[in-house]
């Protein structure tokens, strides 16, 4: 089952540029990245993370450094896991993004809406920064006099 899920993620990575498989040294470890963010997944409940998924792998730490360099994302003290919850028949019931601190305490969970099409996930695109034309205004009489004096002072230096 786990191998089948890994295979599905690998296949998806070939279609989607934003999804990459990270090169883990251990053959049984499987880590992927969405954008620059490293994620691992496990089967089980969102609040019941298996012990060996609490620690970050070297590849994850390296990827987090990249995320900081490229995207400016500070995830140094956060660990992300996808919890795949199954029902009694073995069917996937929920997929939940679990955010933990480095001590393994779950700090936040986000349910992934499985019914939505993947295409609906689009990056946030901010509108262009628009500036008005630069302003040039006549100086008030006294300001103008001060500028004249200033110009004379600069010249006489």
């Amino acid at each position, binding site marked *: 089952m786990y191998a089948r899920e890994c295979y599905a993620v690998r296949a998806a990575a070939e279609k989607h540029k934003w999804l990459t498989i990270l090169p883990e040294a251990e053959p049984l470890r499987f880590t992927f990245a969405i954008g620059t963010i490293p994620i691992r997944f496990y089967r089980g409940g969102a609040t019941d993370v298996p012990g060996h998924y609490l620690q970050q792998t070297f590849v994850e730490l390296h990827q987090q450094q990249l995320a900081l360099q490229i995207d*400016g994302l500070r995830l140094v003290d956060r660990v992300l896991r996808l919890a795949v919850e199954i029902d009694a028949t073995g069917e996937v019931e929920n997929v939940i993004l679990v955010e933990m601190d480095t001590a393994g305490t779950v700090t936040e969970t986000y349910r992934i809406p499985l019914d939505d099409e993947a295409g609906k996930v689009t990056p946030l695109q901010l509108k262009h920064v628009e500036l008005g034309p630069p302003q040039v*205004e006549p100086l008030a009489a006294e300001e103008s006099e001060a500028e004249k004096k200033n110009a004379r002072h600069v010249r006489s230096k």
Partner: protein
Amino acid sequence: MPAMFVLNKTGFDGQRLQLAREFCDLTQKQLGDKVAASHALVSLCESGKRTEPATDLVEAFGTVLGFETEFFYQPTSEIFREAECSFRHRRSTPERLKTKIRAHASLLGMVLERLRVYLKFPALNVPRIPTSTDEQIEKASEQARLHWGLGIEAPISDIGRVMEHAGVFLVSHLAESSQVDAFSRDGATALIFLNQSVQSTSRWIFDIAHECGHLVMHSGIQTGAEETEAAADRFAGAFLLPRGAFAREFRTSPFSWNHVFKLKKRWKASAAAIVKRAYDLRLIDAVEYRQSFKYMSARNWRKGGEPHEPEFKGPELLSTALGSLGTKIDLTVAQLCKDLHFTPKTFLTVTGATVHTPRGNEVEVIPIRATGMS
């Protein structure tokens, strides 16, 4: 009878003679030949060793160079020095062309200095951030964006306006030569010259961002070396295409020209800049990068201009200021020209603005009719 003039008692200023000569792109020998003087005499006048040259000689200088005689007797507050100026394409730019552009910019500086007596321009507001590593350059570009209230996520609609709001004048008429892409001057009057003889708006946008990089990072530093130019290029890429937002959008589709041109439309950066930025951020590998540039060269996009060029608003600050003469303020263009002791032709070349003399002073020319032989 020749027109008489009253000399300002500040004395003859050799710097102004040199400035006017360089503006006209003449050597000391060429100027000497034109005014029937030796080049040694011209040199002495320029260096200040001949403090009071003959009045007829100064008048001749003015006639040849396009200035009223009084021009050479005005005090000078600001001449653009080489150390303050950055040239894009500097190493391949002929020294004489650089000198001419610098002289032209100095004269424009005199115009702006005079206009400052009457008009309030945006104050010079450029953050100064020294850098030495790529990471520091990335951060400097982000700090500059934040300093100007642009955020670090959104494309910039008009980078020219960003610079003009920061009190940096943009000008596009200093030279018509493909041997220089852009030029900037850091000082009390900061200025970016944009060469529009190169017909590529995305390149102009990148050139402005590049010069912006020099102003932010290289204040007081001699530019033109490979390192400073590479740093300004990196700054330009980072300023136009901030790493976080750009990387996210770049990765939404596989690398293709179609995708690059969609990004170009949104970010108003050239395809070349987008490809380079993607490589800098390791979003594409070296092979993809090299193949892309080979493809762009084969299509002649790099020299002949790329397709799908973005809209570009021209410089506005100087034209707005000149446009307000005679309308918002009492000073007219003709009075300004007279105050500066430029001839109308020189004023036109320096500023791009035509001097309309009052009707009464216009010289009437009566055409000579051709008469048939009887």
